[in-house]
């Protein structure tokens, strides 16, 4: 289990990195944290001719908030930095809560926020959460830059809208509206395994305590983050009663088309999706209802 040979380039600026990506196109792979890519290379399932290592791009490692309260995270910010960051805990508690669920501490010390998103693994927590939180991704190439909404970013298993000459440089998470509650519920075989099913729920209540906005986004039930739009719509204008929540959770099945693998059948995945959607919504509604709360 040793990787095949490759050419290694470690640019020190984003500009330089983009130049290399333009030059090598499909032959090159970007190396961020490498915690998903290097296992594939050790198995020789991935054999890129050129590795463009972004780890020297200090300019892509930051966490800050904009004036309007939007949270900005540099693509090369490591998971452990996000996990321990107070700004993230305050502005995006869903992300804060999800970080310890990502792999193991030894992976989070190296893995990067942007790398996880660009890898577009349908079992990843961060991709799902970014969709649930209406995140946006800044993608850059020598041709220029574009902001892509998270919900439009993922195209399939390990596949995103990123062109071969393009890279993800920054993630933006809008501020949370008042009376917003959130939850990430997932079940895995062992603590750090890929979740069999997971769901991120975000609900915002109006002043009367009725739901004015709801998002339910699943992981591990398709080839990317999968949103249950119709189920979420069922909550709009309603209070988060057990009956309403249960009905919405039951309805998610209509919008999901999961696959089977050795750990879960289609039926079991759909069942888990319903159960976890209900649990996530219960938690999210409870959190939204308590003014100013950010705690469980």
């Amino acid at each position, binding site marked *: 289990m040793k*990787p095949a*040979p*490759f*050419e290694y380039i470690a640019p020190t600026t984003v500009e330089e990195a983009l130049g290399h990506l333009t030059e090598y196109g499909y032959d090159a792979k970007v190396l961020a944290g490498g*915690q998903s890519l290097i296992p594939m290379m*050790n198995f020789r399932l991935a054999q890129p001719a050129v590795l463009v290592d972004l780890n020297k791009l200090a300019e892509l490692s930051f966490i800050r908030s904009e004036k309007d309260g939007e949270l900005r995270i540099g693509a090369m910010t490591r998971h*452990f930095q996000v996990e321990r960051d107070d700004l993230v805990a305050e502005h995006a508690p869903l992300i804060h809560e999800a970080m*310890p669920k990502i792999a193991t501490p*030894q*992976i989070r010390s190296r893995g990067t926020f942007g790398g996880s998103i660009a890898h577009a693994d349908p079992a990843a927590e961060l991709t799902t959460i970014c969709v649930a939180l209406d995140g946006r991704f800044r993608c850059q190439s020598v041709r220029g830059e574009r902001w892509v909404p998270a919900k439009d970013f993922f195209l399939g298993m390990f596949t995103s809208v990123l062109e071969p000459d393009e890279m993800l440089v920054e993630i933006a998470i809008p501020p949370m509206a008042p009376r917003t509650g959130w939850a990430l519920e997932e079940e895995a075989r062992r603590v750090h395994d890929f979740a069999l099913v997971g769901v991120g729920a975000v609900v915002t209540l109006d002043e009367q305590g009725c739901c004015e906005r709801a998002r339910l986004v699943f992981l591990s039930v398709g080839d990317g983050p999968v949103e249950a739009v119709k189920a979420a719509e069922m909550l709009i204008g309603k209070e988060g009663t057990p009956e309403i929540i249960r009905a919405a959770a039951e309805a998610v099945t209509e919008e999901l088309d999961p696959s089977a693998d050795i750990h879960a059948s289609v039926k079991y995945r759909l069942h888990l999706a319903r159960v976890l959607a209900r649990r996530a919504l219960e938690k999210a509604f409870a959190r939204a209802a308590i003014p100013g709360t950010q705690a469980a």
Partner: protein
Amino acid sequence: MIKAMDITVTVNGEVFQKTIEPRLLLSDFIRHELNLSGTHVGCEHGVCGACTILFDGMPTRSCLMFAVQADGHEIRTVEDLGTMEDLHPLQEAFQETHALQCGFCTSGFLMSILPILEESTDLSEEDLKRAMEGNLCRCTGYQNIRDAVQLAAEKMSSGGES
């Protein structure tokens, strides 16, 4: 032909300059280029944790990094802890609680736990879980390792290199 690259790495306080192929895994570099064979390799896909080292102070899988990436960085391996005659309190705790059997996974556990104890010896249940979750052990059933971490925390909080 891929050209070899020169790197300078500080390992356990000592500076090494080596010329290596870019694809050389950091685990192989540490074991076979530097002959620090206390770091072990169990899966080479980032799950077992036997190869855990401290990379710039953070516990990291050395099988999931290339040695070229260590250029200009600092690494600590198990050889940086105590010696056979003068064990580090964490190593002592492992011996006293019988937290190792075959000993193959042990250096990975030590290097995962060490930075947590160096940061704080006041461990919550959560900290304890976090210290252990990224390493597989097939011999001990983990129980004595849990005890070892707690004992080491006591030893290290009292500052005693007993």
